[in-house]
Each structure stands twice: as C-alpha cells, then as structure tokens.
C-alpha cells in the first residue's frame, strides 16, 4: 500500500513539472515584511450640559452609528427577594415607553431599519441602538423614551416574567448552562451576584411588581449614573447636538454605591459531578478566582492564558482536541469582571474520556508553571497585538468594546495602550504569573455528565473530594408558576 502511494506521488510530481514555467516558486514559508504597530486612536470625550459623559469613536465608512447608553446599576444592586429585578427592568424598558405600546414602539423602529436592545449585567443596564446616521434623530427620540420614560405596563410585566420562568426551565436541559451556573455558584457563593444560579429566587421573582420596577428605574436611571458610548460615521459636532437634544435635560443625581461582595475563600481541590443520565459528552469546567482588572499583572496573565488555552494553537486545545481527540475544542479564560472574574478552563468531552481529560487539564496547568519558552511568549504576544485591529471593524463591535470597559470600571484609554502593554510582557513575567494565578491544588472541577459511566473513573483520579448531585440538587427545584 505505501509503495503504491510513493509511486503514485512521483507521477504527480512529474505531471506538475510539466506544467510549471521556468523558475519554479520556492515553496518554503515566505519572509514577511515588518508588522506595523497598531494603536487604537483615542476615544473622544465630552460632556453634555448636565454633565453626562459621552465617549465617541469616529468610524468612517458605511453611514451607520451605534450607541450604547450605560447605566451603572445591575444585578449587584438587587437585595435578596428581588433577584431578577434589574433584568426585568431592562427588558421592560423597551416594552412600551412615552405612550407608545410595545408593538408600536417596535414597529416605529423597524420602519426606520433601526435596532434597539436593552440588556443587563451584574453591574449595569445597557441600552443599545444601531441605526443609520440619517435616522439617528428619529430613532433617537424613541430611544430616549425607552431610557427615560418607560411605561412598565402590567400586561408586559407579566409576559416578561412568564418568559423568564420558561427560560429558567430550559437551563435544566443544557449541560453547558448547568455547568457554568454551578461553577460560578461554587466559586462565589449564593450571595455574590456572580454566584447566583440562573434559576435562583424564582419564587420571589414572580412577586415583583410594577412598583419595584418604577422604583428601580427612578433611583438608578439619571445622568449621574449614566454614560453614552458612540461609534460610527458621524462628526462630533452633529453628534453632540443630537445627544444634547436627547439627553441634555436629564437630571443628574448622586449614584447609589454598589454593595461590595466577597467571593468564597479558596478551598482545596474538589470535584462536583452533576448527573445527566445518558449524556453523550461531559461538560468539564475547572478553575478558581482569577485576576483583578487593575492588577499590575493583568496583561501578563492574559499573555500566559493565551499560551495555555486562549487560542486554537494553545496547549489545552492541542492536547485535548488535536493530540487526544477527546473533544471538539478546549479553552481557558481569565474572565473580565469588575469584582474579580474567575479563571475557567473548559471543554465538552466524549463520555468515556471524562477522567482522562480532567487529568490532561491538570497536566497542562502543571506544565504551564514549569515549562514556558521565549517563543511561546513571543507568539502569544504577537497574536494579541497584531490581530487587535480586528476589534475595530463593525460599529456595534466598537461600542461594545467601550461599554464593556465602563462595565468593568476600567479607563476608556485602555485600547490606546493595549498593544504597548502586551509588548512589555516578558518571559519572566509569564513564568511568575503562571505560578501565582494558577493554583491546581485549589481548583474546583465541575463535571456535568452521565454518572453511571464516569463516577468510578473520576474517583480513581484521587484528585479530591467528589460530590455528586442530580440536576435539581445542583440548580434547586424547577420553577413552577404561581408557587411564590
């Protein structure tokens, strides 16, 4: 067989030579020119007459503009018994405002080809508007009403509550959603906003009323707790005039400070298996608390993680996917969060490879603390620095970038300094932060998979205490209507 192949390939070569003109190409990897350093241009900043800050990134090209109004209050402000209030308020803002009901509001925007979206995070409510420059004034008026004059109709509140309860139910079906929920809960605890299960508090949630929403909105939506991010093909003068018209009159109050929360104390390595009978794969999530966004090692940690699991050619993906074929992919992340996000490595592996894959994850964590080379670091740095211009393609991608910085409580000058900060990271930095920010002996391992097939092998790893839960034990009782 192999002989046949060899003969065969010689024939191919002969045919090839026949068709090639004189001076055949040198087919070795080409020498490339010098990379040009890329620095994001500074975001322009100005304030409206009421002090409301605006951040503007000019993006010439298609006549499109993307606005994000960031309101600095989210789930972290919710008290026990009110879980879901920030999200419900965000949802309801576009379900009727300024006298237009939910359908009329949607229709008016659709006629303009504009897209409006209000979302919430742990620290904010963000209202986004994508529109053509020509329709900014018309769409802007509706957008202003959504932000400042939501009607909170009772019928819409009930609709949204029903929808959320059903979405909670769907969490019980999805191994990834189960695994992520459980991982965050175990690292941060029930009380921390990052640790609250998606399904937590559904009984009280059903009792939320229009008064709760109105109060939440009145307290938190004002110019003292807002910032507007804009990216698009518009000039600063026109933009300023439009925004002044829309938001210049919004009163500025003093923002209510966010309560502070502490994650759980680091614990010894332990395993939590959530039983999903019959699952064809196991979700694996491994990690612990990550790095603070203002930590001096933050960028070095990002470079280190790029080597570990932050790109296709990273060690975890090469090991779990390419070498062993256990999974479609594997990755690791130091997740950006204002109050210290987690380190999380994850994959979905075929059931019979569950324990071996967990072992390989830890092999790579250990190797990361011992074996890193100059070329590993150079490649990771180039990957992060030279590909960075791609973050400045579409206008809503750019407005997201800056509103995420607001959400994380970071300065909006971060992109201007990003490539230099990456360039400054050294091999010694990466070696140091690997030892400091990866603590394999304190990691939590969450597995969502078929207990009957994986329990024995996980125990045999002897990596720490193994706890087993059913999906309902892990997520709590399934939501039921009217059970509050």
């Amino acid at each position, binding site marked *: 067989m192999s002989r046949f192949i060899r003969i065969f390939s010689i024939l191919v070569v002969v045919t090839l030579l026949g068709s090639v003109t004189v001076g055949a190409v040198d*087919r070795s990897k080409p020498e490339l020119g010098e990379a040009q350093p890329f620095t994001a241009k500074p975001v322009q900043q100005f304030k409206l007459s009421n002090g409301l800050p605006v951040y503007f990134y000019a993006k010439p090209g298609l006549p499109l503009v993307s606005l994000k109004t960031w309101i600095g209050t989210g789930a972290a402000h919710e008290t026990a018994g009110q879980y879901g209030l920030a999200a419900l308020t965000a949802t309801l803002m576009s379900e009727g405002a300024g006298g237009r009901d939910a359908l009329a509001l949607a229709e008016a925007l*659709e006629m303009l*080809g504009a897209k409006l979206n209000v979302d919430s995070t742990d620290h904010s409510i963000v209202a986004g508007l994508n529109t053509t420059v020509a329709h900014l004034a018309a769409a802007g008026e509706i957008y202003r009403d959504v932000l400042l004059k939501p009607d909170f109709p009772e019928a819409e509140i009930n609709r949204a509550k029903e929808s959320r309860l059903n979405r909670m139910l*769907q969490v019980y079906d999805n191994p990834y959603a189960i695994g992520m929920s459980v991982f965050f809960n175990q690292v941060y605890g029930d009380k921390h906003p990052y640790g609250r299960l998606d399904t937590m508090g559904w009984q009280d949630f059903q009792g939320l009323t229009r008064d709760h929403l109105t109060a939440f909105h009145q307290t938190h939506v004002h110019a003292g707790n807002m910032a507007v991010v804009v990216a698009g093909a518009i000039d600063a003068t026109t933009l300023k005039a439009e925004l002044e018209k829309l938001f210049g009159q919004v009163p500025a109050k003093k923002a209510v400070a966010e309560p502070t929360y502490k994650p759980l104390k680091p614990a010894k390595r332990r395993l939590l298996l959530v039983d999903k009978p019959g699952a064809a*794969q196991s979700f694996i999530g491994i990690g612990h608390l990550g790095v603070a966004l203002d930590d001096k090692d933050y960028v070095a940690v990002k470079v280190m993680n790029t080597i570990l699991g932050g790109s*296709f*050619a990273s060690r975890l993906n090469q090991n779990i996917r390419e070498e062993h074929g256990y999974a*479609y992919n594997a990755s690791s992340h130091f997740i950006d969060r204002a109050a210290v996000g987690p380190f999380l490595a994850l994959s979905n592996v075929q059931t019979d490879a569950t324990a071996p894959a967990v072992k390989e994850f830890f092999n790579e964590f250990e190797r990361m603390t011992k074996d890193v080379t100059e070329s590993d670091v150079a490649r990771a740095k180039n990957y*992060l620095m030279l590909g960075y211009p791609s973050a400045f393609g579409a206008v809503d991608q750019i407005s997201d970038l800056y509103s995420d910085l607001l959400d994380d409580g970071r300065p909006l000058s971060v992109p201007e300094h990003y490539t230099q900060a990456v360039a400054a990271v050294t091999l010694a930095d990466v070696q140091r932060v690997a030892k400091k920010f990866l603590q394999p002996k304190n990691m939590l391992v969450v597995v969502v998979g078929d207990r009957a097939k994986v329990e024995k092998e996980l125990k045999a790893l002897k990596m720490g205490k193994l706890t087993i839960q059913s999906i309902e034990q892990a997520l709590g009782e399934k939501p039921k209507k009217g059970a509050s």
Partner: protein
Amino acid sequence: MNLFKWMPAAILVVCGMVGTLTADDGLKMPHVRYQLDNGLNVILYQDDSIPMVAVNMWYHVGSGHEKLGRTGFAHLFEHILFEGSKNVPEGNFDIWLEEIGGNNNGSTTTDRTNYYEILPKHALELALFLESDRMGFLLEAMSQAKLDGQRDVVKNERRQRYENTPYGMVFPTMMEMLYPKGHPYSWPTIGYMEDLDAASLDDVKAFFQTYYGPNNASLVIAGDIEIDATKALVAKWFADIPRGNPVPPLGSVGARIDAEKRRVLEDDVQLERVTMAWHTPPAFGPGEATFEIMSALLAGGKNSRLYKRLVYDLQIAQQVSAFHWTKLQGCDFVISATARAGVSAAELEKVIDEELEKLKKEAPSAAEVQRVVNVSRAETLAGLQDLESIADALNRFFFYTGNPDYLGEWLGALSHVEPEDLSAMAQTYLRKDGRIVITVVPREKKAATEGGKP
C-alpha cells in the same frame, strides 16, 4: 480607501427606507475579478479602514457531493486541511498564523466548503502560501494518523452540536425527512458516526483529486491591499498549481413531498417544540427574496405574525423562528416554535397553520411588507461591516449568482417583493401536504403516551 464609502447612492438607499424604493439602488461593491490559466477565480476588494486583510477561499464542493456510506466526508476533509501539507508541517498552519496575529477557520455546507484567514496586511503572503500549499500539495503530507485524529474530533463535534444539545437532533432528522434517500441533501452535513468511521485514506485522495483543483475554487482577498502587488502574489503562489479534471456535477435527483411526513423525537427537554419544513425553488431563483421577506414577516420581531400570535397574544410559545435555507439545487423554508411549559407542540402547530392559511388567502398590506423589507435591508448592510463578512459575501454571491457584486440587485430584489408574491408563494410552496413536521417532546412524556416503551 474604503470602498463602502463609494456611492452617495448607498446613503440614499439607507436614508430612503421609509419611502418607496425602486431600481437596484445602484449599490456597488467594486472589485477586481479575473481567472488564472488553471481556472482559479480571483476576486480582489480594497478597504483600508483597518490595516488587516481577509483571505477567503471557497471550494465548490459540500456534503451534497458525498457518496452514500461516506456521509460527513466533505466536512471531515475540511478538518484535515488544517493539519499541514507538503511545506507546512503538522501543527504549523495555526502556529504560523497566530504568531503574526492571524486567525483562521473553515466551514462546510451542503454545497460548498470555505476556508478563511484574517491577518495584518504585512502578512498577506503567508495566507496565500498556506492556502496554495494545501490546494497543490496536500497529499504529499497526508497520513492515517491525521485522518484518525480529525475523525475523533469530528465525532465529538457531532456529539457537541447535535447529540448532546437540547433539540440538537431536529436538524439532521429534518434533512433525512425532506429528501428521498440518495438525494444529495438527504443526509446531515456532519454525517453519520458509522460513515465517519468508514472514511479511509483512499477516500481522502479521491476527494482531493476530484474536487480540490483550482478550477473548482474561488479566492477572495479583501482589505488593505494594493491590486497589482496582490495579483503578483496570487500568481506566484497559485499559477503553477495544475488545473484539475472537470468536476462532476452534483447528482441530481428529483425531490417532491406529496403527503405530509411526521416524526416525534424524544429528548431531555422541559418544553415541547414543533419544526416544519417545505421545499422551495433553488438558490437565488425567483423565490429567494420572497422567502427571505416571508421569514421576517412570519417570525422576525414582535410584530411578525407568528411571534405576535404565539408569543405575544396567546402566550403559548417561548420562541418562534423562520428561515430560508439557501441551497444550490433547491432551498427549504423552515418554521420552528418552542412551547411554554404545559403547552403542547400540537397547540402551536394549529396556530401556525391558521396563520399560514391567512397569508395564503389574503395578501399582507403594503405597509406590513415595507416594515419587513426595511429591517431586512438594514440587516443586510449592517452585516457587511467587517472584512471577513465582506469577503465571504463576495464569494457567496459569486458562487450562487455568478456575480460577486450582486449586493445591489439583492437589495433591489428585497425591495421589490410585492404583497401578492408572498401570498402566491405561500400557496404554491407552503402546502400542508408538501411538508415535514417534527415534534420534540420530553422523554418521559413520549414513553407515557406510547405505553411505557423505553
């Protein structure tokens, strides 16, 4: 120079959306297009808004070209193409791209396979070297180990996307039910496990030699490039790759559904779901724009008909979607709705049927169609901002219409969909006896309704 800046017409289009629109709007995506002697189609597009370049290669082969018993092979083959070629040692494809700040990926559909890189402009030649090496010199570096490795990865992709995902088996089941056995679209693109197991090195060689010649591919380079210099680089790396044999056409088998086909799937889910699908005319034929608008009219946004009835008014559905699945030999129109807790898929189906009947009987108002057209046009333009999307759109338009610069015509076609077209197309194609219906029910429920069978 950003070529999207071009024409005042573009601004006109977007601004004029409320009013009536005529003509093809004069929208252009100016490009340079030529063919090498070996048949490779080349399309160059300048846009210097960021100092990056997108390289996008389409091979005009997909899962529809597979043989029975080797389903999933086109996609498995796509995976193998990242594992190195004669001058690219295994593993280096990704390493070399990452070390200059590049990203890459690929995807496979029923009709075509695409491969793409996005990288800083100084590194354009690296992508051309990598793409040309796997186009011309793949087999010299092929091995059983590479095939076996990617076979395992793809089997896990199948588990992750389909078997271990709620409702994941709906899509593969839909393909089986829509087309008669042996039809190029009658098996899922991801393939069956046993066929993935059966794929051999001989299959790899035959597939490569049959379908991966330059004459069966089109290369788009979009971004911060100079035309002459780029042409020279393309010639350097691709010109001496020999033309392949003419590519056999897609096996053409008729497909027609004369009686409704139904199947019930059980899954580990809380909420029931109904999915229905019909045949529609081939890609970019007379129905393309109409069904695009139809999908938004039925399930795009709060005011769409199915959303409003099922989710908003009756509150019996959690979600509803509709889309037109564009394929060379024949498209499909798909509607899917997920029930609220305590509601059956049958209840959703009844309301969907009512809405379809209504649409067949009575043309929508001009205002309703205009609203939907405005959204579709805006979404089309918003989806053409980044270089990767622009490059892929040029290749997509070229593949399906022969004209990379089809954007203006496409927007014009969307604008020209008449209310009566929607009713007529619904009458002709969305027939109850011409569809397949899949319902997904919670596992224990099916067991209960079937007398406790496992």
